[in-house]
């Protein structure tokens, strides 16, 4: 039995390592081409080790006039504030819906679920937030539209509460005269650290990586986040691929990103996450229960 176990563990590890390589190797290609000389890539092709080590691409992106430092700052602030607000509104919705004694519970669940499948699309959402709430070119533009409450995450939280918080505990707290808000804050939240940690990770990744809100709701370049800044450069490349570049060619000072530049942009966008990620990963395990409510 022990011997068999050992053999299994070795195979297990080999499989997991192969999958890990499958995930990581393309990243090596990304990194090394971002440090390569553009000419070398055009002439000799992409490779796993940088060809003719060259920092031109980084020098171009990090050039002070691009405001990249400020953009990193905006990104950090958006991610921080957005994640906190989103966690609050998600928990506030998920907790009542997880309670079996809430009347109209199925309606509230359905409203949530329906919003995952149907959406009005960009334009009507935009009309709502800019026309009625005037959030264009404000900080809220990054936080509020689309990202603030994700139906799927609410369902995840609802299921966790329903499965892991015994109703007996809630009952006894009520006997002691605790209000619902107090129960939520001092009993439910402490017992739900795993799911909250997981949601924190997913939500913060969404905020960090978001560029669509920035693209449509923020038109002032001194308010760009890092992803908006980088994606605008990438979009220009796509634009050229669609054969619309004649206009750009006729302009003075329109930037046309090269392949190494694109890779450098990608690295700069993902790097901070890769650095912070290992520190939060230990909270990841055990947080997610997406299944239905039991019992």
């Amino acid at each position, binding site marked *: 039995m022990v011997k068999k176990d050992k053999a299994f563990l070795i195979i297990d590890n080999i499989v997991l390592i192969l999958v890990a390589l499958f995930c990581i190797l393309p990243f090596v290609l990304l990194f090394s081409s971002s440090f390569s000389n*553009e*000419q070398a890539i*055009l*002439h000799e092709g992409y490779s796993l080790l940088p060809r003719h080590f060259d920092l031109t691409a980084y020098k171009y992106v990090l*050039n002070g*006039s*691009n405001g990249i430092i400020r953009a990193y700052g905006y990104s950090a602030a958006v991610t921080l504030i957005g994640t906190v607000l989103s966690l609050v509104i998600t928990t506030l919705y998920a907790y009542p819906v997880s309670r079996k004694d809430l009347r*109209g519970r*199925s*309606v509230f669940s*359905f*409203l949530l679920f329906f919003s995952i499948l149907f959406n009005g699309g*960009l*334009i009507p959402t*935009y*009309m709502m937030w*800019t*026309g*009625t709430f005037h959030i264009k070119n404000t900080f809220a533009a990054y936080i509020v539209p689309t990202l603030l409450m994700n139906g799927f995450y609410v369902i995840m939280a609802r299921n966790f509460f329903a499965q892991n918080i015994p109703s007996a505990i809630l009952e006894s707290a009520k006997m002691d005269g605790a209000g619902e808000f107090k129960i939520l804050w001092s009993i439910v939240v402490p017992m739900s650290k795993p799911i909250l940690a997981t949601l924190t990770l997913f939500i913060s990744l969404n905020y960090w990586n978001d560029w669509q809100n920035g*693209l*449509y709701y923020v*038109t*002032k*370049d*001194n*308010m760009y986040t890092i992803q908006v800044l980088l994606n*605008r450069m990438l*979009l*220009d*490349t*796509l*634009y*050229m*691929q669609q*054969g*619309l*570049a*004649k*206009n*750009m*060619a*006729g*302009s*003075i*000072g*329109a*930037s*046309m990103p*090269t*392949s190494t530049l694109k890779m450098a942009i990608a690295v700069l966008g993902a790097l901070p996450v890769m650095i912070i990620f290992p520190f939060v990963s230990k909270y990841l395990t055990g947080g997610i229960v997406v299944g239905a409510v039991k019992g």
Partner: protein
Amino acid sequence: MLKKQLGILLAAAMTAGMLAGCGSADNSSTADTTTAAEEENAGNTEASEGLAEESGETDLSGQDPYTVRIVADGFGSEEACAEIAAAVSEITQKKFNTTVEISRYDFATYVDQVQTELASGEKIDLLGGVSDLSIPSAASQGQVLALDDLLASDGQGILSDISKEDLASTSIDGKVYAVRNNKELGLGLGYVFNTEMLESLGVDYSNVKTEADLEPILKAAKEKYPDVYPIASDSGNMNEYMIPIDWLGRDFGVLMNAFDDNDTEVVNLYTSDEYYELCKRRHEWQKEGLIMPDASINTESSASLLGSGKAFCAATETKPGIEAQWERNTGIDVTVINIVDYYTMTSCLNNYWYIPYTSEQPERAMQVLNEMYTNPDVANLLIYGIEGKYYEFTDKENGVIQYPEGASSDSLGWTITAWHFPNELIAYKWVTDGKDIWDETIQFNKDCHPSQAKGFVWDSTDVTNEIVACTTVMNKYRAGLNSGDVDPDTVWDQMKAEYEEAGIDKILTEKQKQLDEWLAANK
């Protein structure tokens, strides 16, 4: 329970939507009437406040204050937009008591951003049009206003400069919806070469008349520089067909020869013999290595491939100053060989200015547009920025300018898009274009052979579904065929059948009908 809740929600939502919808429509119409009245008053009572005006013009400096929001293509930083807007406002304030606000959006996002703003009723007074914001679609969807009355009342400077024919080219059903820019109004087609390589081959290229004539040159280049692509695509595109096609606006159905005044048959380019021949030739070239491999999915711009010495030549539209433009973008010496002579058609007027339906006071917008069109100071500010900070003179006498020492478009936050603003021909000249560029352009516009269908505007409303279907077919085949990646023999019959099923005939018939009517009325 559920039903009832949804019902309430829906009702709430509908009222909200209705309010939003009505609000925007009302605004513009009331604005119209009130300001028209004010304007009359202004002329009489407050004339004394204004500065000296040219004789015959009404003094408009006493109008109520108003801000005209200009939206334009290309990158402009927040700071640069504000600074330049303030400088323009100084001029417009004195004349019209109007200030100016400028928003610029990157090329890639411009159309999306503008469409979103228009859909949500955001105020835009003057909108720079590009080919993706086409006049027929903007007009038929009610995104922009008809300009006839406004031009008559506040756009005299524009009217005196644009020919009737050109105004017709930007009209739908006899109403003018856009004011075309003053710039080169035609095009030629040709190839741009790396001069150093071209000269080193020692071949004679003076007799190149068609694309096929390039073959010996390309072969010689392939032999001498085996690692260089003889022809490169531009980020996957090789859409220059080296045929003088009149596109008859957009969508499908073209006149194959803009120089032949007797040919008025609308045909589908993509199933024509001429196109087959071109694809076949390019496919042969592809097989012989004369066109870069994977040309249709290449992600590098031809400028970057030429500049890095990886490519020998690439297709290009031609016009005065085209060599300077390529040299600016590649950083190497280039030679342009022209294959199709200069000609002009309706689709060449592909940059224009609109007054969107969200303008609160359209006649104030028109006053500013007129100023942008006729006042060199305003044109220079919008195109280049402020003297001293954004540019400096290299040759003041001839109005030739360049970036100040150490500055670049990145540090200044202003992309120079002379073609995009109403009248580049009255502005200064960029140093790389040379002092004669605008004279050359004016001469070019005179020399361009006008297609007989110039001025014809295609209205696609009745065949939108067919156009969507045919566009799908086109997307499936065009890029591969254009670049020689796909052998036309393998797909030709199926492609033809698919076009037919998608309703190409209906489009061609409709276009032919419209064209015939137009020809009968205008020739």
